[in-house]
């Protein structure tokens, strides 16, 4: 394989490693590809992960820019440090820069034109923020197709004090227009959004679903895992992510459990935030695992589950549903997001109408009371995960894209008299 050098760019390394480029970075190194990661805040100890800038001055500038952005209702526009990234040794040494979550406050969109002109660039969109005036998910709003402005949901993440959504939309348009990047999205659902977005007309779009380690995420001894986590003997386990994020559907999960009419003893197994299901104390066993640091803990949770409940209202891919699939557990999801596509509903995913907690409770009851259906969906899920979400295939496809991008930019550079890329 031709050798090239990649720099992965993200907000941080350890937390959200799948989405910040850390996992991909490690896989590339395992394949013998020179890769480094540059992050805004380094939390881990990996030697090949670097902080973009460090020191007290950085923090000061960072805080000031963030405060100004909040006060002026702007997003990712005022930090001057992103322009300095071009001087970072890892950026300079790389043949290609791969951007991941760059909307979490540290980046400056107006640095994108310069950076993408300097290096061949790939940008993975994990959500629609890049196409909206401020929000991460527009839900049913379609104003992002028309230039935003008069925003009906300014409070949604990332919230704005004043309605500057039209201005932000225009700035994004200008930044992308002057930039040169290839986009990766993980689902047809996101692909559809990008194609419908007036901002992304220039974008070269590639759909590459994320992959999971199918050897790690696989069906296991459910009873042993239940015992390990302290599930009461005889209980069925409904696992879900507990978070107050408006995208993840917490109110619907709670409403569904309120409406659920079952005599089956039940354990609600949650990860992420604790205490959100405490109202069910006495009715169901609640086990809050909190934020899970390791993959092993996640796998324990999936393997102990009988059903995975994922009533997200905004989901661009649905990595957790894929992990549940790989572990052979049926998932119940809402339509209107990427989840039905990701979970191949109705073949594997049990999809109900978005926002309908009655339907959710009905679907949950159906699966709780039908063991053979649970098991057969789980088996199908595992098969589909093996067919579509292998980590190796994901990394292969990303490397193939890097190769194409470098070849294309290399030939362009040669035509312009610049030094050719290593692949040219």
């Amino acid at each position, binding site marked *: 394989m031709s050798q090239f050098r990649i720099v992965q760019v993200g907000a941080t390394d350890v937390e959200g490693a799948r989405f910040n480029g850390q996992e991909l970075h490690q896989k590339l190194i395992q394949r013998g590809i020179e890769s480094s990661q540059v992050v805004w805040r380094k939390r881990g100890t990996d030697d090949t992960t670097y902080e973009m800038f460090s020191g007290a001055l950085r923090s000061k500038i960072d805080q000031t820019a963030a405060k100004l952005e909040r006060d002026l209702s702007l997003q990712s526009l005022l930090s001057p440090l992103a322009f300095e990234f071009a001087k970072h040794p890892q950026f300079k040494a790389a043949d290609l820069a791969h951007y991941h979550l760059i909307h979490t406050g540290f980046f400056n969109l107006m640095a994108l034109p310069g950076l993408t002109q300097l290096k061949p660039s790939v940008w993975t969109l994990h959500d629609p923020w890049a196409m909206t005036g401020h929000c991460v998910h527009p839900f049913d709003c379609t104003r992002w197709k028309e230039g935003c402005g008069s925003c009906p949901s300014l409070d949604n993440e990332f919230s704005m004090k004043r309605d500057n959504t039209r201005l932000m939309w225009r700035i994004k348009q200008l930044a992308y227009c002057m930039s040169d990047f290839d986009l990766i999205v993980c689902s047809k659902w996101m692909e559809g959004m990008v194609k419908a977005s007036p901002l992304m007309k220039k974008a070269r779009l590639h759909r590459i679903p994320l992959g999971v380690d199918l050897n790690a995420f696989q069906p296991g001894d459910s009873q042993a895992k239940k015992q390990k986590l302290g599930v009461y003997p005889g209980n069925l386990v409904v696992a879900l992510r507990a978070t107050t994020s408006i995208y993840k559907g917490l109110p619907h999960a709670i409403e569904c459990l309120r409406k659920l009419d079952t005599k089956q003893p039940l354990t609600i197994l949650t990860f992420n935030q604790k205490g959100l299901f405490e109202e069910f*104390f006495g009715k169901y066993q*609640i086990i809050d695992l909190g934020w899970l640091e390791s993959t092993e803990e996640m796998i324990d949770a999936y393997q102990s589950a009988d059903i995975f409940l994922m009533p997200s209202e905004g989901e661009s891919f649905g990595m957790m549903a894929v992990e549940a699939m790989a572990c052979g557990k049926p998932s119940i999801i809402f339509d209107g997001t990427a989840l039905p596509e990701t979970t191949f509903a109705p073949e594997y995913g049990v999809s109900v109408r978005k926002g309908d907690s009655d339907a959710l409770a009905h679907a949950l009851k159906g699966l709780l009371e039908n063991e053979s259906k649970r098991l057969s969906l789980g088996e199908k899920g595992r098969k589909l995960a093996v067919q579509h979400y292998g980590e190796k295939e994901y990394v292969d496809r990303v490397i193939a894209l890097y190769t194409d991008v470098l070849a294309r930019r290399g030939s362009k550079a040669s035509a312009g008299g610049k030094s050719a890329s290593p692949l040219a």
Partner: protein
Amino acid sequence: MMEVCPPPIIAGQRENPVAQKRILLLSVVPPNSRYTGGIMLHSMCQSLNADNLSCFSVLNPRMKAEMHPDFEGIAYKAVRRPREANVRHLPGRLGSLECFFKETYIANVTIPKLAQQVREFAGQTKPDLIFCTLEGQTMIRLADQIQKTLPLLMVTQVWDPPEWWLRSNSVDGWSRSSILKTFSSVLKNSAAVAAASPAMAEAYSREHGARAIAVVPGLPRSWAKQSATRLNDGNNLVIGFGGQMYSKDEWDQLLATLDALDWKVEGRDVEIIMLGREFELEGFNKRNIRYLGWRDQIESIEILSQCDILYCPYFFDRELESTARLSFPSKLTTYLAAGRPVLLHGPEYSSPYRFLKENDAGMLCHGLSKSAIANALSRLVYDTDSYARLAGNGYRAFVENLTDEYMRLQFLKTLSMASDSRGSSK
């Protein structure tokens, strides 16, 4: 009964050359059998030659701490400790200012006088080194003065991080910052530091450049009860609690959970037995709690060994994070010696949580919710394998890490390290 590992062989402690050094104990309490610190000091000092010991105590006037009979003949002086708790008579910033002036006066007037008394005492007893417990702002400042004015090696001991003490005594921000700076300097200038836990030893070595060794409170191995293999017969579930009640929020949540469960866990009626002094007794009569008052440690272990579960709460409060991370509750040592499973109710980063997790020696409850507590209690009842395993591993963890023999060995290591530091500095 569980099979246990053999005890560590620690012989000839008093023959150790370090044990023959003349040591001045500079502490908030003399070796005694009444207060946790005094008990620990007494236990550690048993590895030393009493003829070579002297003790200067800076005592809280409310404490009735008398010298333990084992050390009755040693040179001993006790002085009154200035009041460290700050009562603010003025509101807001004015109250802080009032506290600042009081602390400044103590630092500049009272402490130098105390330091002079220590120097005079040292002049009479001629120690080779000073062993100083750093509890509270008085001892931190005093240690600093002594380090600067007496050409003697000093070994310091930390039971709890000072942040907790300063907070609970309402010390103002300016004084707090100055005291913490002094604390760091004292640690750096100590020939060795006896830390309250492995986590503290690690953190102080890293953060303050201290030469630190963990010296965790220990108890005689012979006091330990063989580990229980199952709950007591009958229809009750007896939860034991002993020692100081510092984790009030966690305790309140336990009671709230039991109230919600109508004081029944897996069909058993729950009863709590409390040992110790100075509990707030309000509302106890409404609940199934028996208060047995203060008992000595042997009796405490005996009583706790007859309970089913031993409850050890530790701070979830983020403001007390450093204490949770670095301190080690002495009640845990007592509990593990009692041979019953410990229910540790504290955050995952806390030092007792990490200790019990590493040794698989306790039921770990890292949530404040009723569900989390109920799950842990229930599991200790229905999961009989876990009950026996945790009790057995708890006993093993005690024998391997928390006996007084082991503590004394660590203590002597600390003193040796101090002596080595003199050698290396020469």
